[in-house]
């Protein structure tokens, strides 16, 4: 199990490769992953940058709890959550969730659960900078199901 908050841009592919490499070769048959990437538009406006604020200490605890919950509900081998904090630009990854399991159903279910759980529970807040220069706090998430 790993939870990482990154202050610099990260490479989701490299994170997944490292995560899989930490497990015995041939032990898992399924890897489901999700990457949230910053878009250059939101709610009809052009967005040029974003700041991700978090609550140091509480956020990490919550992400670890989310993985523990997934392990209780599904037969998974391991899970990974990586989340950016700080200033990010369009095209940059914001979040990665990945799950390895023997069979695919558990990996799909748990990977999606990680995303929904972190979006509803983990203390992150997004502030967008629009093309006009205006800054605004994102007020709610898009629905996940």
């Amino acid at each position, binding site marked *: 199990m790993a939870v990482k908050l990154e202050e610099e841009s990260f490479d989701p592919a490299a994170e997944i490769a490292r995560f899989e490499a930490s497990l015995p070769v041939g032990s898992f048959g399924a890897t489901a992953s999700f990457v949230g990437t910053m878009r250059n538009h939101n709610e009809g406006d052009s967005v040029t940058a974003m700041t991700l604020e978090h*609550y140091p200490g*509480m956020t990490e*605890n919550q992400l670890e709890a989310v993985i523990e919950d997934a392990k209780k509900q599904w037969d998974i081998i391991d899970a990974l959550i990586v*989340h950016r904090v700080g200033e990010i630009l369009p095209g940059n990854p914001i979040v990665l969730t990945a799950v390895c399991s023997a069979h695919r159903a558990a990996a799909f279910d748990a990977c999606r659960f990680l995303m929904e759980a972190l979006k509803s529970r983990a*203390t*992150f*807040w997004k502030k967008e900078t629009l093309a006009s220069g205006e800054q605004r706090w994102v*007020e*709610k998430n898009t629905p996940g199901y």
Partner: protein
Amino acid sequence: MAIKVKFFASLREQQPEGLNAVDADGIQTIADVWERATSTQLMPAHVLCSVNLEHREPHEAVKDGDEVAFFPPVTGG
């Protein structure tokens, strides 16, 4: 005899800078901390709160030395 107070995101921007604790005297609940820290009567319904890094409800108790935080709905991921 103090309770640490943190605000995040839009709530942080609405508070005076440098406020990071309130006197614990007479404080019983999270809502009391809000009242003392912000000098407003009622904690708005959309404000979320935590005590010592755990989500809590406004009516729950706090004690000297606790860290209480107030923040808007989370929008990560």
